[in-house]
């Protein structure tokens, strides 16, 4: 266990807005240097959780501690957090240099020293130091030649980097990013992902990254918290979230194309039955269940689940085969060399070691292989 006095800890945070519960007692811990993504559909409470951490949204109950200090009721300015807003929230009337300097000036200079004209006379040394720190953060972000421009004269990607620079320039304990890539075009988004992770590593802060894009969460985060309806459904590494989801909702939210869900049953002997046919899988559960198989875990076999090809999508490095099997639609990811024709009848098998079993309530059920053989 980490010492509880470092990093960010949220305990049972609850938020209700206008009678609607937005957060239902959410707990989350982020260690210094760790990058946690809050992933979920819009309206799931991920941004609200971030705002609770930042101090922009007071929680109805619960506790927020940063480096061992209880900041639940503290003003945002007193929390040692920095935030990158979705629309960057740059001060439009200040130059890039001034924008990046704001967090430093607010902490290192008093009100008189910040005064225009005269203030400079009383704070020459502090101002020189601020200028040095601004230059030091601007250089690696490629902003050095833009320092005297106003935000309106910058491209979206440049504004994004200014917002990042402003956030990390004072080395915050907690670094919050609210969908920072959602306003960038697709190509820039991919390259900026890496940049953000590098900035995070340099800053060494406990970082929380809000996104609804699973690709961002899977590629960037050390751990992902999948949120839905004001709750964290699962918190784990990207691999665990993808391969070992605790909940049907997590399994369907993560993965593109979506996981295939097939209605199945567990007989009295504990053997899993799909379409009446026994599978080499057993479960301690009984009755109706849902079998989940990811598109890449299917293969075409001499015998198995009978299916008919409905549609083929060629995507260059792979292709997606949409099949119809006993009323259910199955999407299979295949090598592009695999040539199948529309309407062709074939048999499908899946890798039982990677299949997932869910109960009627959506909870993950334990499952074991009966024999080594596949279907």
């Amino acid at each position: 266990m980490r010492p509880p006095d470092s990093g960010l800890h949220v305990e049972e945070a609850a938020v209700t807005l206008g009678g609607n519960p937005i957060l239902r007692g959410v707990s989350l811990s982020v260690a210094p240097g760790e990058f946690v993504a809050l992933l979920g559909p819009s309206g799931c409470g991920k941004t609200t959780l971030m705002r609770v951490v930042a101090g922009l949204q007071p929680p109805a109950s619960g506790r927020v501690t940063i480096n061992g200090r209880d900041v639940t009721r503290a003003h945002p300015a007193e929390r040692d957090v920095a935030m990158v807003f979705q629309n960057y929230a740059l001060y439009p009337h200040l130059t890039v240099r001034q924008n990046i300097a704001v967090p430093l000036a607010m902490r290192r200079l008093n009100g008189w020293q910040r005064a225009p004209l005269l203030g400079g006379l009383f704070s020459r040394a502090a101002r020189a130091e601020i200028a040095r720190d601004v230059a030091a953060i601007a250089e690696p972000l490629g902003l050095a030649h833009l320092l005297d421009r106003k935000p309106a004269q910058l491209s979206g990607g440049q504004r994004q980097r200014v917002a990042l620079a402003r956030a990390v320039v004072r080395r915050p304990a907690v670094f919050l990013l609210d969908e920072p890539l959602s306003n960038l075009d697709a190509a820039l988004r991919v390259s900026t992902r890496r940049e953000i992770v590098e900035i995070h590593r340099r800053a060494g802060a406990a970082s929380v990254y809000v996104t609804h894009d699973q690709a961002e969460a899977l590629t960037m985060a050390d751990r992902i918290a999948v949120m839905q309806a004001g709750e964290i459904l699962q918190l784990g590494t990207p691999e665990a979230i993808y391969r070992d989801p605790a909940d049907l909702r997590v399994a369907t939210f993560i993965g593109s194309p979506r996981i295939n869900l097939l209605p199945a049953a567990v007989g009295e002997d504990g053997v899993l039955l799909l379409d009446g046919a026994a599978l080499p899988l057993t479960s301690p559960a009984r009755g109706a269940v849902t079998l989940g198989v990811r598109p890449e875990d299917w293969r075409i076999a001499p015998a198995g689940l009978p299916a008919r090809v409905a549609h083929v999508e060629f995507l260059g490095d792979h292709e997606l085969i949409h099949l119809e099997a006993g009323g259910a639609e199955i999407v299979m990811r295949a090598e592009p060399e695999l040539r199948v024709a529309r309407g062709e009848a074939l048999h499908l098998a899946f890798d039982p070691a990677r299949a997932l079993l869910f109960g009627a309530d959506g909870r993950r059920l334990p499952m074991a292989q009966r024999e080594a053989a596949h279907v």
Partner: protein
Amino acid sequence: MSEAALSGALPHRRRLGEALGGWLLSLPAALSFLLLLLLPTLAAVAMAFTDFELGLWPPAWIGLENFEEMWADRGFRQSFRNTVVYVGLVAPASVLLGLGLALLIEAGARGRAFFRAVFFLPVVSLTVAMAAAWQYLLHPTIGPLNAALRVLGVASPPAWLSSSDWVLLSLASIGVWEQAGFNMVLFMAGLTAIPRELREAASVDGVHSAFARFRLVTWPLLGPTTLFVVTITLIRSVRVFDTVAVLTRGGPNKASEVLLYTMYTEGFTFLRLGYSAAITLVFLVIVLALMLVQTRLLDRRVHYG
């Protein structure tokens, strides 16, 4: 639609028809602009250089004589000075008060609509009618203001509207009362246009006090609003007329004589329309100069998001 692109492609007659149609369609607007705005203005300008008086025909062209008379006229100089003092009192006070009220109402959680309505009332009420109420409030003997002052121990409170020392200040107070509510509404509109994210970014960046936030975010982003409010307030205060006409008639002893009132008395009491037009021209030049200063000087320093 670009003319160059069309000229080659279209036959001559069709182009002519299109041009004719365009002129016909813009004719009502052009005509009314000409008849209702441009010609009267030009007529007034021309009149300023004549000795035109109602009943004396034909008027004679007298060049700059009207302006020479104005320069020598102590009454006019007094009126000009009074106007400057009035604007100097009303404009800053009503702009600052409007801003203060807007900030207070925006910050307050409750009663927003109520306070907005209360302070906006003077704008929608008829000044001439409200002047009667002011006359009563400021009455030297039966007015509630002086009654209150006497209770507070002021032995002989001033006769607000009939003392030459106090009359301008009294009129200016009424002017502030009239204009602050309007400015408040403009500032409130400006405040709602400031994105909430910016205020939140400021607080995360370490801005703690309301004053620091005002300095970093609110005031700079209100720049365009402030520029507009200052311009409109200056012009509205230079145009002060109805309170003067109803409450003091420029008195006592021309102590509250202002530009528009002088113009009015010269033109409609003494029927010296030529001289009155000359004063109007001076007034017009002042207003245009104000607008020019605003747009040229201040525009450069104001950030338009």
